[in-house]
């Protein structure tokens, strides 16, 4: 029988008392990241602020997908659709508030909460179905969700306004920040705060009893069941958590873009998210960060490359839309074949190799 502390340890590793409580450690990291973000938001130009805010919004979704796919072993191709659910909810809420002439700083958090709630409801429905399915069946169902949900916006165009989509009225930054406060900085603050909060919750979840159960179910369902874990309930829970963060990510994207349309949440977005998670490194929240950065940086990079080349406008337009996709696809294939751990896996391996070398040098 292992000592009591080891049994109680949330992460499955022997407790290191010197490192203190997991919550405090994560809080410290989040606070540091928040301060860093504020510092960055003052030192870079508005467009970079907006890009960083977009990274934060994507990070919400990729982190949730990491928990689902990396930790719980369920593949979802439908997270783009879940993001759409969150985005449309925020659009409907904000429009309703604006129509009634309501103002106040608490409205946006309320809309975001509503977005999370509606996505949780959708996620629970898909999750209940997903818990019964394995491997390719699950992939197929979530693929169908990804294809069908954006099409619903066109079917029920009375509510969702078809292909044009809805606009999302967002209030300007509060006057207490001064009259000339850049709007992009305010966007970064809002999305950054929401994302950091979501990440804090996810990080704690991963290190908790639930995170351990998620991993147990991923690694061996039969063993997990024998150990008294309710496998289906765990899978639904993982799906719901993941859906909630995807909904928040979609809602934040809608707030950033101040509009939603079905075109923004196509099947390609779902594939992008999956690709980001895989390339970043499955099962690690830092991997989700790399993936989110890649999602924003790569189109930007290909844009500047196509601008450098002197091409006819038609060719340039074709390249610009498709080159990032081609690079994403190719990278995904190469990473899956050559480095299944993704960027973060490579970095960890590099770090371990460096650490392993030091003691030998000393001796």
């Amino acid at each position, binding site marked *: 029988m292992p000592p009591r502390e080891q049994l109680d340890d949330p992460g499955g590793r022997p407790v290191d008392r010197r490192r203190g409580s997991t919550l405090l450690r994560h809080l410290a990291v989040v606070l540091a990241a928040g301060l860093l973000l504020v510092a960055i938001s003052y030192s870079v130009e508005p467009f970079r602020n907006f890009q960083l805010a977009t990274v934060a919004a994507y990070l919400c979704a990729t982190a949730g997908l990491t928990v689902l796919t990396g930790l719980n072993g369920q593949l979802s191709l439908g997270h783009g659709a879940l993001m759409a659910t969150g985005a449309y909810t925020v659009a409907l809420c904000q429009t309703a508030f604006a129509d009634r002439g309501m103002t106040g700083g608490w409205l946006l958090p309320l809309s975001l909460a509503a977005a999370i709630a509606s996505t949780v409801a959708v996620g629970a429905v898909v999750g209940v179905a997903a818990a019964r399915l394995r491997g390719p069946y699950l992939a197929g*169902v979530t693929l169908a969700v990804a*294809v069908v949900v954006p099409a619903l916006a066109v*079917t029920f165009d009375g509510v969702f306004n078809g292909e044009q989509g809805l606009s999302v009225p967002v209030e300007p930054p509060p006057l207490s920040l001064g009259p000339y406060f850049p709007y992009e900085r305010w966007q970064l603050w809002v999305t950054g705060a929401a994302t950091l909060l979501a990440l804090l919750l996810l990080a704690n979840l991963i290190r908790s009893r639930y995170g351990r159960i998620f991993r147990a179910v991923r690694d061996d369902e039969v063993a997990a069941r024998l150990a008294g874990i309710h496998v289906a309930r765990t899978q639904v829970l993982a799906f719901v958590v993941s859906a909630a963060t995807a909904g928040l990510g979609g809602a934040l994207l809608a707030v950033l873009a101040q509009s939603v349309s079905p075109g923004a949440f196509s099947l390609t977005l779902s594939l992008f998210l999956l690709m980001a998670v895989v390339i970043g490194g499955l099962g690690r929240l830092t991997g989700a960060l790399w993936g989110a950065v890649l999602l924003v940086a790569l189109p930007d990079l290909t844009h500047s490359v196509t601008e450098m080349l002197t091409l006819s406008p038609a060719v340039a337009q074709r390249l610009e839309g*498709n080159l990032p*996709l*081609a690079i994403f696809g*190719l990278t*995904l*294939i190469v990473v*899956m074949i050559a480095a299944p751990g993704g960027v973060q896996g490579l970095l960890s391996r590099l770090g371990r190799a460096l650490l392993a070398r030091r003691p030998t040098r000393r001796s």
Partner: protein
Amino acid sequence: MDRFVFLTVDGLSRGAVYAAFALALVLIWRAARVVNFAQGAMAVAAAYVAYTVSTATGSYWLGFVVAIVAGLLLGALVDRVVMRHVDHASPLNPVIVALGLVLLIQAVLGMVYGSEFRPAEAPFSRSALTVGGVAVLSPYDLFVFATIGVVVSGLAWMFARTPVGLRMRAAAFAPEVSRLLGVNVGGMLTLGWALASGVGALAAMLVLPTELGLHPHAMDLVFVSAFTAAVVGGLDSPPGAVVGGLVVGLLLSYVSGYAGSDLTPLAVLVLLLAVLLVRPGGLFAPVAARRV
């Protein structure tokens, strides 16, 4: 009544195409235990090659043959260059790689051909012949039925009656034993991929004239429908795929005819969920023992 007959024939015609596409999925699933999520994109790529050849030479039939050859080659290429090197330990890996292929193929097509719809011509008239005042079926429907019929019975004959078919079944059923008995298992796998991709390309050639036209994403919804068809039949059963394809085709035709074409994607999703929740292994699958 006229409308019902028309919708039924139209549904069966679409269903025949779904059946072929689902059959291609089942072929690869049986051979390699991979659901080829890239099949739609691969089929569209073959159709674009056919479009190029047809517009250059003015001959539909040359393009038709080229599409099937391109499909065969693309399937073999995907197996040899990509799928063979994927670690199949986790069932997620091949799925993710196939999705990477989807992104790559659709992006390359978009770069080469642009993302506007290209017209896909039909070799026969699509206006229905009337029998006793009731519009029944068009020459194009007849062409679809005949082609799919030939392909399906050809595949059935090959797997049941020929030495190659026997080797392919053996390689899929017991790779180690077959290898010991002198079967070229890797070659059979490549052949399976090539055949499936060729059938997929054929299905794309048949279905595209009935849709909006040629577009890098033209087969997305067809793929989802065909996957549903394959699942309805149980991924392991070729006759199930054919029946499933016809069922899905009929359902979609009735839904779009009586309730509006906007609702067809939703109908596919509902059918897929309903079948999977009732019988997670598909309607035609034998009751599987739980894997331990």
